[in-house]
């Protein structure tokens, strides 16, 4: 125990000394620091003209540095595939979270649930629908206010998790098996990459939305381009989160609190 405390004190003193002597970092908040004057000024001044999206972060994320976001979605997709490959599910692991077969045959039982109360199941479906609605709002308003692909994808996954966690016996809004979810994540990434390839086939650089082949005036092309990749990101992130969740749940056996 003492060894740990001594370690911490050494860290505090060491960093303190190093920091007092160095002054290589700019003072927080002065707007003349080199970080603000070179590239980001261009982004702020030209974002509306180039990308037609008032939300500067989405403009930088989706249009100026769109390739980074493609790689981000690939990071999520590779995390999902890795979790699936590591946690290969064994068929004999019975798990309470798998929806019982009789419900899937379209003959739902009259509201029988773990805690013998009816309203929980009705309310959960309502909550899940509201979260989904909010997720679609966040997706479509990615350019105007704070929001965008990742937040929308994570919210959709949350609405699935909420309905699965609270009422495991009722049928969730949309049921995705682990293999389908992993494949859907791949499709999400491919939608994003295909948008870039579309611009390459049409003569522009990769992810240059001005060259998308849709017959719309130039300023809307950027909006359509950003919307397409946001949809790709949403599908990728949602499917990956559900894949990792199902992969972990299948290996975790809740056989101790069967009431």
């Amino acid at each position, binding site marked *: 125990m003492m060894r740990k405390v001594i370690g911490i004190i050494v860290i505090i003193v060491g960093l303190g000394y190093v920091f007092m002597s160095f*002054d290589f970092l700019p003072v927080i908040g002065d*707007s003349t620091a080199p*970080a603000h004057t070179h590239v980001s000024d261009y982004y702020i001044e030209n974002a509306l003209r180039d990308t037609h999206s008032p939300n500067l972060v989405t403009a930088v994320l989706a249009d100026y540095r769109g390739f980074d976001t493609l790689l981000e979605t690939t990071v999520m997709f590779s995390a999902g595939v890795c979790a699936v490959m590591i946690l290969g599910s064994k068929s004999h692991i019975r798990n309470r979270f798998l929806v019982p077969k009789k419900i899937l045959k379209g003959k739902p039982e009259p509201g029988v649930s773990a805690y013998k109360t009816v309203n929980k199941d009705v309310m959960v479906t309502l909550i899940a629908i509201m979260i989904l609605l909010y997720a679609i709002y966040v997706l479509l308003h990615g350019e105007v206010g704070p929001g965008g692909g990742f937040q929308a994808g994570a919210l959709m996954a949350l609405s699935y998790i909420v309905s699965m966690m609270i009422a495991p016996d009722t049928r969730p809004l949309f049921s995705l098996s682990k293999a389908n979810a992993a494949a859907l994540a791949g499709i999400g990434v491919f939608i994003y990459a295909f948008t870039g390839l579309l611009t390459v086939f049409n003569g522009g650089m990769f992810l240059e939305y001005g060259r998308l082949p849709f017959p719309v005036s130039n300023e809307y092309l950027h909006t359509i381009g950003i919307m397409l990749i946001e949809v790709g990101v949403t599908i990728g992130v949602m499917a990956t989160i559900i894949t990792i969740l199902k992969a972990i749940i299948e290996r975790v056996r809740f056989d101790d609190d069967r009431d």
Partner: protein
Amino acid sequence: MMTGIEQFLADKGIYYLTFLLLSFGVYGIIACKNYMKKLICMNIMQVAAIVFFLSLGQKKGATIPVLIEGLTNADSYINPLTHALMLTAIVVSLGTTGVGLALLTRIREKFGSVEEDDIIRRQNKL
């Protein structure tokens, strides 16, 4: 008096606290014996890197990076580039946590525990 502390904080204080948080994250990864705690300290370390990046992009008296009709000069908006980069870092930290927990589940199955010294003892027998 107030501006004295603020000046110190702006000049070095925030950076020092961020690097302190980062070093506790790294210390936690090394010192904790339980693999689950190592994972949580790894997440904390990544949040510390994100806070450092965001504090680089601050401007005094600037609004959030969403364009408003009236304002056009660049000094009135916060630097949007650091925010775009940090969305990547957050998503990377979620991906790494997901893979880490998948590994943790399999290690728990095979070695029966997630404590480092139990695993090393049983690993030599394997």
